[in-house]
């Protein structure tokens, strides 16, 4: 029959996410389409069996972020490998209509490269465009939200137009939960275990904290921790690789949340079963210990900022039989609309309000069914830290700035992970993993090139790893930035002996000290321009920039262009070529 729909499950939404942004957008879109009675598959690119692109998918939507060097996020390397096979015919996917959405940051030169590559390749394989693609820019005033709103506005009519018979469900209807969760209220309580993170996937490394101490002065505004972890299994990593940690919530937050929903508290320690696949890096804690309390503690990010998808579900659970309830429901519903981005931003993002606080504020008329908890509260994501130690089979170090700040909300904001890290005592067992990067420092070259390191703040971490490994093997030049010599000059004592041996050259930039000649790393680079030029042009040094994103990497780049002007014909192009050749490495966050 000509009038029948393509199957409602022929829509596939795939995401490649590093921090979870792309994932949230993918789920937002998935839910929106469910209200058009479509049943899209929402999956990370790597979890998706590529065969289904042939057997199931007719409409493909890909959302993907770009990491530091224009690389693909970790969760899609496998998928990309398939896509890049040379022998794939160019009409392999000619039955698929598609569109893409890139999440990028224009302060990186390889802005949105991952999605550009995916889009190009899908076109090569015969896919046709369903609606216009989009490359969002985190640096723009519209934010990624602004781009997403525009893209969705074009995408939804283009997609629903492909289905002649669609029935729109009113978005006030509560759809069944995507994750199936069953609590057995009549069973006995599950005995509370010790650190249940240790029962997560066997693929994780297990070990313990050896050291955890503050390396900034006690009166410095920022607490930077140097943490040493001992591993029970053999570690293989090299400079530029990252350590992944799996932080839980603190017990107080969990208890507070349970008390806000008394019907949760009543079943908090009963056995709980999740029968759907939950995609979480590092796996869930063991089933035998799974309870509502432990699910929240180890997996649900109650101290994250509530996102649009959160409000899009939360409003259903407000009892609107009173005027107060009605008003609250409307407000929460409004927050879920893309048009109300500004209000949502002011309410949630700007003051860094937490999910926990939001539930607290609306608790009076709010009753959230347990079955919806995984749909509602995002999973705690793995936290990544650049490794600060030279390769070692049984230990690994990181240097972490503890996140603590104030907003107009009176509670101090603390990062979930750094709050957990700060209180970790030596001896505490933990799980972790090591993520290998594609960064190479020309180790396979006969003569190892020098490395020009540019590192303000905790950007120093991977430099320490590289310096400890390579001192004496090649020329190493470090441009380090900090505020005050007495307060946050990180790892000074590590450099000193190396400087004496002349295996390391250090140039500092000190931003908050009276009489300091050079405030920022770029100032110091310019002051040493002859050295920098000769390193880059004559000695073919590798440049490694690490630290906070935004101004720093951009100004460093501009400075280098100025330094190179005159020595090379086109300095901008020269830097681009360096980048493509892996000689200009940037890791910023």
């Amino acid at each position: 029959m000509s009038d029948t729909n393509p199957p409602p499950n022929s829509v596939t939404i795939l995401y490649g996410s590093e921090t979870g942004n792309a994932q949230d957008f993918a789920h937002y879109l998935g839910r929106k389409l469910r209200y058009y009675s479509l049943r899209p598959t929402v999956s990370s690119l790597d979890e998706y069996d590529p065969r289904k692109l042939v057997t199931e998918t007719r409409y493909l939507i890909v959302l993907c972020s770009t990491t530091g060097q224009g690389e693909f996020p970790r969760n899609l390397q496998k998928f990309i490998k398939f896509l890049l096979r040379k022998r794939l015919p160019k009409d392999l996917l000619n039955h698929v209509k598609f569109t893409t959405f890139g999440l990028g940051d224009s302060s990186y030169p390889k802005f949105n490269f991952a999605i550009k590559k995916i889009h190009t390749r899908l076109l090569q394989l015969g896919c046709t465009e369903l609606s216009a693609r989009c490359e969002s820019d985190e640096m723009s005033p519209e934010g990624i939200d602004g781009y997403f709103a525009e893209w969705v506005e074009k995408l939804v009519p283009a997609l629903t137009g492909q289905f002649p018979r669609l029935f729109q469900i009113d978005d006030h209807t509560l759809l069944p939960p995507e994750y199936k969760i069953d609590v057995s209220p009549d069973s006995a309580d599950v005995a509370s275990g010790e650190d249940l993170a240790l029962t997560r996937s066997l693929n994780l490394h297990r070990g313990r904290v050896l050291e955890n101490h503050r390396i900034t002065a006690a009166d410095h505004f920022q607490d930077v921790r140097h943490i040493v972890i001992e591993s029970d299994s053999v570690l293989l990593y090299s400079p530029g690789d990252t350590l992944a940690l799996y932080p839980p919530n603190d017990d107080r937050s969990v208890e507070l949340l349970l008390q806000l929903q008394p019907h949760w508290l009543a079943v908090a320690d009963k056995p709980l079963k999740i029968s759907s696949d939950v995609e979480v890096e590092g796996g869930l804690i063991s089933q035998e210990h799974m309870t509502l309390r432990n699910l929240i503690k180890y997996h649900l990010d109650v101290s994250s900022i509530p996102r649009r998808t959160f409000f899009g579900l939360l409003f259903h659970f407000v009892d609107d039989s009173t005027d107060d309830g009605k008003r609250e429901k409307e407000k929460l519903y409004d927050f879920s609309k893309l048009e109300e981005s500004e209000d949502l931003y002011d309410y949630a993002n700007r003051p860094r309000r937490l999910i926990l606080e939001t539930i607290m504020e609306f608790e009076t008329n709010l009753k959230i069914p347990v079955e919806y908890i995984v749909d509602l509260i995002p999973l705690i994501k793995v936290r990544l830290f650049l490794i600060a130690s030279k390769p070692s089979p049984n230990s690994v170090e990181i240097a972490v700035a503890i996140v603590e700040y104030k907003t107009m909300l009176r509670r101090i904001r603390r990062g979930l992970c750094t709050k957990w890290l700060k209180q970790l005592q030596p001896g505490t067992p933990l799980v972790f993993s090591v993520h290998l990067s594609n960064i190479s420092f020309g180790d396979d070259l006969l003569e190892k090139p020098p490395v020009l390191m540019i590192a303000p703040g905790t950007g120093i971490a991977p430099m320490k790893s590289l310096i400890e490994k390579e001192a004496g093997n090649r020329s190493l030049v470090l441009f380090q930035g900090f505020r005050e010599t007495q307060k946050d000059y990180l790892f000074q004592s590590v450099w000193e002996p190396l400087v004496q041996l002349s295996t390391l050259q250090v140039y500092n930039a000190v931003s908050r000290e009276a009489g300091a000649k050079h405030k920022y790393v770029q100032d110091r680079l310019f002051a040493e321009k002859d050295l920098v030029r000769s390193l880059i042009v004559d000695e073919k040094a590798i440049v490694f920039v690490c630290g906070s994103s935004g101004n720093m990497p951009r100004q460093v780049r501009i400075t280098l262009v100025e330094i190179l002007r005159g020595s090379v014909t086109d300095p901008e192009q020269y830097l681009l070529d360096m980048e493509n050749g892996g000689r200009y490495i940037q890791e910023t966050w």
Partner: protein
Amino acid sequence: MSVLLLLHPTIVTDEDTVLGIKSKITSQYPQAPVTQHIIDRVARENVELAPNSFAHIVYVNPNEGHLALPVLVISKLFNALAEDGDFTGDLPRNQDLDALMNGFIVKAPGHWVKPVSQKTLVLLRPKSLKEGRTAKLPLFKKAAAEKDTVSSPVTLTDTSANNTDQEDEASMKRRLEESKLSYFSDDSDDELIAEDELLADVNDLDKINIIVPKKCELPDGKKRRKACKDCTCGLKEIEEAAEANSRNLQETILGQMVQLATLEAIEIEDRLKKSAVKFTEDDLAEIDFTVEGKTGGCGSCALGDAFRCDGCPYLGLPPFRPGEVVNLDSFGEDI
């Protein structure tokens, strides 16, 4: 139009009952041919139901509590029903949402109707739809304006073969799928395209068909107030000042609350009556917000940040209610 009688497997052994049901249906829908199937066979796809071919579907399930229907079956039956056709009988009572998700309208419990499409369908069909639909079928044609890329040297389809006549679409489709699937084998030795090769085409990508958001302005003409991550235009300072201001206001408010509380406590002591600090509407209205043009008159201050105005002195403080005990302790708490 015909009627489809669906039977639960537990009833088919009871011939009398089945005959009884059938005669009932015949009297209800005279002259309509009745097709009869066991529901399991539909679920297992042993029988193919032609789309839009039944005016009525009746389900007989003698089991108490009406066992749930798999979503897949619901969607199959929806397709099999003609427009305005209905699905009645022993329907599960807790699957209205599944019915809805599959396009049914739930007229009453146990009475699902397939709506007439003209009225309910989302009228967003683009003009090119017809073209789109044929393209979806296996045409075995080379895409017309394809770029010649080194990366994809072969095609699956052969334009020379005249194969549209006899072969039915389904088997063609299956064969095409099979040949496509052969490329998905786990062959890790396959040569890969260098990622950078893809970037050669990137510049072409940028020029066409890309979405850019509407500028910095909101529909109401208000500028987005969020400063960029590395703001240099001064917006960040303004934001910081606004935040400092809102903290100052909070301090003032809290100070006043304490003052008020003290005053009231004195009163209470005098009267030896009340036992807690309470705010009445009057008390709230009396608070001087110290900011010009701001009064508590909008009535939303007590409701919490979600409802407060831009610049409300209570921003950042928890909601409270006139007459309710205000818990000052919880303000400074750390989670």
